[in-house]
C-alpha cells in the first residue's frame, strides 16, 4: 500500500481552470473519499491520479514514486494502480475469469499462478462459481464485483474508485458499500473513492475531502468532523438536508426573524449581530404545546419509518422529521394545518451570508 501526496496540482481544459493548486495527502492504508457536487473536478483529480490526464502544474507522488510533475508523467499502465469505473467497464467480450485475469496476463504471470490468483480475487468479491459467465449474463451489481476483482487481483498499492455504485439500485448500493469497506480493511489497501453521495462517503471513509463547485477542497476530515463540525455552510448543506434561518441579536439573546420567538439553546460562539442558524430535520422536536417556537404544519408526509413535515413559523419554513412510531405512540403525529411547537435539539451557527439566497 502506498500513500498519495498531491502538491500544488492544477488542471485546466481549453482555458477553463478545473483545479487550482490543490494540496492533499492520503495516508497509506487509508480509505479516503472525495465528496463533491458533479462538475466540481473530483473526477478530473481521479483521472490525474490514474494518469489519464496530465497536470498543468504541481506534482503527484504515489508511495515513493513521483508519477507526475512538470517533466514526467508516468502512464496509467505503469502506476501500479487498480481502478473501478462508474460504468463498470467490464470487457464484454471476455468471461469473468478472463476479465479478472487480464491484469495478471499483461504482467506476464504464468498461467497456473494466474488462475489461482484470479480465482481468489473472484472469491473475494463473492462471485465464485460464475467464472465462466460472460458480462452480458451478469447483473449490474455482479459486473461491478467483477470490476472490483479485476482492480484488486494484481494487489495494487492504490485502488481508485470512480462513483462505482452510481448505477446500482439503492439496496445493492448499500450492500456493496459495506463490502467495499470490509475488503479495504481486510486488505489494508489505500483507497481513493470519488462520489457525490454523502451517505456513501460517510459510510466508507476514514477521512473525507469535500470539494466545492470551483474545484477547491473546503474541508478534509473524519466523517464525524465534516458532519458534526462543518467549517462552513456549504459543507453543512452538502452533507444533508439543512434548514437555514437568518437570526439577529436582540436585547440579551438571539431572535428568530419577525419576532416569532427567541433562541433558547446555547448561544453561538461566533461574533456579530446577524448570524445564520443551521439545523437538520431531525434536530427539530415537535410538540403540541409547551414553550417552543409556535408554528403551523403546512405539509405532512408519511415516509414509513419517519414523518416528514414542512412547518411555517412566522414566515420561516422548517423541514422537520420525526420517528413515525414514536410520534404515533406519543400522540405527536400532526396533520396539515395543525399548530405545533418547535424545540431544537442541536444546531450549527454560520455567518449571516449562509442564509442569503433562500432556504436550503
Amino acid at each position: 500500500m502506498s500513500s498519495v501526496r498531491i502538491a500544488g496540482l492544477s488542471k485546466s481544459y481549453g482555458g477553463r481552470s478545473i483545479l487550482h493548486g490543490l494540496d492533499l495527502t492520503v495516508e497509506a492504508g487509508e480509505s479516503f473519499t472525495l465528496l463533491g457536487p458533479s462538475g466540481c473536478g473530483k473526477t478530473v483529480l481521479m483521472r490525474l491520479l490514474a494518469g489519464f490526464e496530465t497536470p498543468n502544474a504541481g506534482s503527484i507522488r504515489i508511495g515513493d514514486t513521483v508519477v507526475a510533475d512538470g517533466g514526467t508523467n508516468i502512464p496509467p499502465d505503469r502506476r501500479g494502480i487498480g481502478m473501478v469505473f462508474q460504468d463498470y467497464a467490464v470487457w464484454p467480450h471476455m468471461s469473468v475469469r478472463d476479465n479478472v485475469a487480464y491484469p495478471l496476463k499483461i504482467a506476464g504471470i504464468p498461467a497456473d499462478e494466474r488462475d489461482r490468483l484470479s480465482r481468489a480475487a473472484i472469491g473475494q468479491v463473492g462471485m465464485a462459481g460464475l467464472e465462466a459467465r460472460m458480462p452480458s449474463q451478469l447483473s449490474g451489481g455482479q459486473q461491478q464485483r467483477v470490476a472490483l476483482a479485476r482492480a484488486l487481483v494484481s494487489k495494487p498499492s492504490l485502488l481508485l474508485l470512480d462513483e462505482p455504485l452510481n448505477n446500482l439500485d439503492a439496496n445493492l448500493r448499500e450492500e456493496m458499500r459495506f463490502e467495499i469497506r470490509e475488503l479495504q480493511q481486510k486488505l489494508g489497501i489505500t483507497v481513493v473513492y470519488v462520489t457525490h453521495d454523502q451517505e456513501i462517503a460517510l459510510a466508507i471513509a476514514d477521512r473525507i475531502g469535500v470539494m466545492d463547485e470551483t474545484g477547491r477542497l473546503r474541508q478534509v476530515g473524519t466523517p464525524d468532523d465534516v458532519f458534526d463540525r462543518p467549517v462552513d455552510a456549504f459543507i453543512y448543506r452538502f452533507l444533508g438536508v439543512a434548514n437555514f434561518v437568518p437570526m439577529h441579536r436582540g436585547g440579551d439573546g438571539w431572535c428568530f426573524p419577525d419576532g416569532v420567538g427567541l433562541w433558547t439553546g446555547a448561544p453561538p460562539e461566533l461574533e456579530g449581530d446577524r448570524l445564520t442558524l443551521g439545523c437538520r430535520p431531525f434536530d427539530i422536536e415537535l410538540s403540541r404545546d409547551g414553550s417552543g417556537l409556535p408554528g403551523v404544519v403546512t405539509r405532512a408526509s408519511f415516509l414509513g419509518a419517519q414523518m416528514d413535515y414542512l412547518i411555517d413559523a412566522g414566515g420561516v419554513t422548517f423541514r422537520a422529521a420525526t420517528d413515525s412510531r414514536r410520534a404515533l405512540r406519543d400522540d405527536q403525529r400532526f396533520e396539515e394545518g395543525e399548530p405545533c411547537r418547535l424545540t431544537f435539539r442541536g444546531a450549527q451557527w454560520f455567518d449571516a451570508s449562509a442564509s442569503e439566497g433562500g432556504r436550503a
Partner: protein
Amino acid sequence: MTGSLRFGTPQILFGLAVGILVIFVAVPVLLIFFNALWVNGSFNITDTVKVLSEPDTYKALINSLILASGVTVTGTIVGTFFAWLVTRTDLPYKGAMRVLFLVPFMLPSFIGALAWKMLLSPRAGYINRFFTETLGFSEPVFNIYSYHGIILVETMYLFPFVFIQVCGALERMDPTLEESARISGADLFTITRKITIPLVAPSILSGALLIMLYSMAHFGTVAMLGIEAGIYNIPTLIYERIHQSAGSFDAIRTGTVLSTVLVATAALIIWLQNKVLSGGRYQIIAGKSFRPTEIRLRGLRLPLLAFCIAYIGFTIVLPTATIFLVGGLATYGLPITPENMTFDNYHHILFEWDLTRDAIWNSIGLGLAAALITMFAGVIISYVIVKMKVPGKGILEFLGMLPFSVPGSVIALGVILAWSGKYGVNIYNTIWIILVAYIARYMAFALKANSAALEQVHDSLVEAARASGATMWQALRDIVIPLVRPGMVAAFFLIFLPALRELTVSVLLYGPTTRTIGVAIYTLNEDGETVYAAAMAGVALIIIVTAEVVVKRVFKIKQ
C-alpha cells in the same frame, strides 16, 4: 499531449491516418481542382468558364440536371407510394413485398439498362419487335434510347433510397399524432394527406436528395442508353473525352472542370440533406417501435396487390430473365425459342475467353483487396477521429467523408492525375490504379461502419485496460479490435459487394488486361457482342446475388 509524446502509439496512429487520407483522398481531389482552376501555374477562372460554355459541356450539364430531376421526381413518388403501401395498409403479403422492393438495390443498374436495351431498343428490342412484327404496329411502342427511357430505368434502381427512408420514418412515427387527428374527426385518408405525409416529409426529402446525388453522378445507365441517342451527362462526357483522346491535356482539362461542377453540386446536395435531417426530424418521430393503425384498402386490396406484383415482375423478373435468355442465344436477334438456346456462350466466357475470365478474377481480387485494405485503414482513421483528442481531427473526418460527395468518375480522374507518372509513380493501365481508386472511393463506407462500432466502445473500457497495466497497443489489440470486429466485418462487405459490380471508376481506368466485370459487360455491349455481354451479365448477377445472400445469412446467424 506533452506526456504522451514519449509513447509513440498515438502519434503513429495519427500519422498513419493523415497519411492514408492525404495520399488516397486529398491529393487526387486537390489535383482535380488544381487542374480545373489553374492554367500554366496561375489561377484562371475565365478559362474554366470557357470550358463550361462549350456547347458539348454545357449540354452535358443540362442533361445531368434534367435526368437527375426526372429520376428524383419519379423515384420519390414511386418510393413513397410503395413505402406507404407496405407499412400503413392491409396489403396482403406486404412483408414479402417489402423485401422484394429492395431487390433492385442489389442489382447493378447498368445490367438493368442492358436488359432494357434488349427489350425496348427501337428496332431490335424484343418488345418493340413483338408490337411491330406480330401485332403490326407501324412504329416501335417505346424508344429506350431517350430521356424518358433513361429516367425510367434509373427510377427502377434508385427508388429504394426513398423507399427505405420513408418506411423507416412511417414505422417510427408516434401513432398518437395520427390518433389525435382521428379523435378530432378526420378520416384515415385525410389523416394520411394532412398529418402523415407532412410528418414524414423530411424523410421523403432526404431520400429524394440521395436519389438526386446518385443520379447526377450516374454513369452506367446513361452510357448504355444515352450515347446511342447523343445524350451525355457529366460522367459519360468525362468518360467519352478521356477515352477518345487517350488522356490529352484538353480532355483532362474538360474532365476536371466538369468534375469540379459535379463535386460542387454533390456538396450542395449533401449540405441540403444534412439541413433537412437536422431540421427537427426526430421531434415527431419516437425512437420506439409502435404498431400504427392500418388503413383498410377494402376493394383496392387485390388490385393494388396485383399492381405490386406486376411492378416487381416488370422491373425485376423481366429484365433478369431477359439477361439470362439472351445470354443463351446462339445469335443476338433470334427469337427466344428452345431451338435457338445454347450454353456455349456461358461456357465460352467462363472457361475459354481470357477477357471475361480475367474480368471475373480482377473484380473478385480487387474487391477483396480494396475491402481488406480499406477496412484496416478505416479502423485506424476512425479510431483517431472518434477516440483521440487531437487537434485537426475535424479535417480528417472531412477528408474521410469527402469521397461520399465525390462521384466515382471524379475519383478516377483524380487518380489518373496523381498516379500516371507525373509525380514519380506510374501505375496507369495496371490493376493497382483501380485498387487505389477503390480505396479512395470506399473509404467513407469503412469510416462509417467503424465509427459506429467504435462509438459503442466506451472510453472507460480502454482506460480499464490501461489501469490494468496494458500499454496503448495492448489495449488496442486486446480490447478495441475485438470489440469493433463486427464493424470491421460490416465495412468489409460494404466495400466488397459494391466493388464486385463497380463500373464507373474502372471504366475510366482499365487497361487491356485489367477489365473488371462491369467493364467487360460494358465493352462487350459497346462492341456489339450483345449475347456475350448478356451472358457475362448473367454470370455477374449470379456472383453478386450469391455473395449478397451468403453475407446476409452469415450476419443473421451471428446475430
